[in-house]
């Protein structure tokens, strides 16, 4: 094939390149206000340099270490449950022989993924209310005392993790179900001939068959260590649970939009972006090295 004209291809890319430049690369450059004392009257470029001052200030705040700890605690619980629950459910779905039943369950469990946290948040606030919420009514009916799921520091992280499982477990099964369909069916026949029951088939064939995908998903989730789920926390938290529920992203939001400390907020955001960037690079490198995975 002869070399065809280049410029129309570059022209097609141009609008996307320009928009990404404005809304992704210019903000990256704008993040230098993390090293400046930002004054709105002077703008980003003319505000004076203060070096690492904003970072130093953030780490003298009593809340900062607590926020980092909360972030790590919540995100790691989400990462672990986000791996285990979908794997188990995918295996359970795979054992279902009645196709209509399987499809119905799949239709139902994928649904919450497509609802926004605003919607789920409002529903949860009603359902978990200590006075009249349906969950606490059940707890009381069973002889317990009402639990303030969204207002107690003991329960809040737990509520976050469970509601996150509820929203995402169904959607998470998709990738594992796809991996299971790729397993050679003759392996199961051979196992049955050898007298292996359901559990032995799951243990010796299904799980090893899923292993590459499990490893891949596990490695890629490493990049989320500092993502505790901004939108979820934002719609569910309140000052009463800052001690257990305030995470880096909500901290950045409040520093920036409530306290109007643009420079300090950017410093915290930049700290998060930089650490996440390293983690993502490591996870992609591991995924490439051990699972032969490439994003493009």
């Amino acid at each position, binding site marked *: 094939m002869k070399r065809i004209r280049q410029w129309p291809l570059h022209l097609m890319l141009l609008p996307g390149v320009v928009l990404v430049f404005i809304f992704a690369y210019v903000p990256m450059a704008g993040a230098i206000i993390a090293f400046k004392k930002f004054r709105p009257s002077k703008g980003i470029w003319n505000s004076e340099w203060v070096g690492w001052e904003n970072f130093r200030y953030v780490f003298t705040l009593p809340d900062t270490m607590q926020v980092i700890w909360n972030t790590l605690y919540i995100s790691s619980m989400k990462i672990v449950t986000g791996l285990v629950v979908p794997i188990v459910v995918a295996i359970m779905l795979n054992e279902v022989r009645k196709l209509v039943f399987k499809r119905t369950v799949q239709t139902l469990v994928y*649904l919450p993924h497509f609802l926004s946290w605003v919607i789920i948040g409002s529903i949860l606030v009603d359902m978990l209310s200590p006075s009249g919420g349906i969950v606490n009514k059940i707890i009381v009916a069973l002889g317990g005392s009402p639990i303030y799921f969204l207002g107690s520091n003991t329960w809040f992280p737990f509520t976050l993790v469970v509601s996150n499982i509820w929203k995402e477990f169904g959607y998470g099964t998709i990738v594992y179900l796809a991996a299971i369909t790729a397993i050679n069916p003759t392996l199961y026949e051979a196992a049955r001939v050898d007298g292996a029951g359901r559990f032995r088939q799951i243990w010796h064939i299904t799980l090893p068959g899923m292993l590459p995908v499990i490893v891949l998903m596990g490695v890629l989730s490493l990049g989320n260590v500092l993502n505790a789920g901004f939108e979820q926390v934002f719609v569910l938290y309140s000052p009463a649970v800052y001690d257990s529920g305030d995470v880096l992203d909500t901290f950045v939001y409040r520093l920036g939009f409530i306290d109007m400390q643009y420079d300090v907020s950017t410093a915290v955001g930049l700290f998060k972006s930089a650490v996440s960037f390293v983690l993502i690079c490591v996870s992609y490198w591991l995924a490439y090295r051990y699972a032969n995975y490439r994003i493009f």
Partner: protein
Amino acid sequence: MKLGRRTFDIVNYVLLSLMGVACLFPVLHLLAISFSGAAPVSAGEVVIWPKDFTLSAYRFTLQKAEFLTATSVSVLRVILGCSLNMLLTMLIAYPLSKESVLRFRTGYVWYFVFTMLFSGGMIPTYLVVKDLGLLDTIWALVLPGAVPIFNVVLMLNFFRGIPKELEEAAFMDGAGYVSALFRIYAPLSLPVLATTGLFTFVTHWNSWFDGLIYNNSMSHYPLSTYLQTLQVTLNLNNLTAEQVMTFIQVNQQNAKAAQIFLSLVPIIAVYPFLQRYLVQGMVIGGVKE
């Protein structure tokens, strides 16, 4: 042995049914509340069947100016945002799928993918949107996310699987790249177009945080941002007088439920299609040679 298998099946079916019910229950609960009278709702008597059946919550909602304004903002946002997203996704994915033809391809790919790995953060992005004068306009909700990189990757991988001979024949007949893209590639890529289109739709319809920070006036809020301001967990100190008024007016639980349920209607309407293309698009788009 046989008994063990039966027990396994029964337990499995029961557990999966419970999971299915658990995923549907909150939506049914919401629906029941929206059709119930205010008194049984605040007494916590409504589970999944309406009590004191009434349409008053819906009548109230459909006459509420704020709800209708927010809905129209959301509709406009979806129309503008989705068209722009789809057009840009195709215009970027097509050249990038030409590995041996496009010069600087690796450079372009890294240029786009890097934005998935690193970001300037909330405040610097806000300052850009502000300095461009986009605050309180629909463009603040549409332009910053105009290039959905993940969708580009999905489509790019799909385009690679389309035989080159098809467009080469078209080039012989004098067609250009643009007509190759829209006349040959697009019609052959319906599964991935459907997947990315539906994802974009859901994303735009559900997004609320950008609506919150890029608008000063509530009259520019899209529906999901407006719904967020109705939340009881909100700290009243952070609200403007205008917001507090709205908050008091609509803090009837059944009215809130009606508004939330109405906002779910488009999602539920596209959900069957979403589900059909979901697996197909994800699997095909993710396949690499």
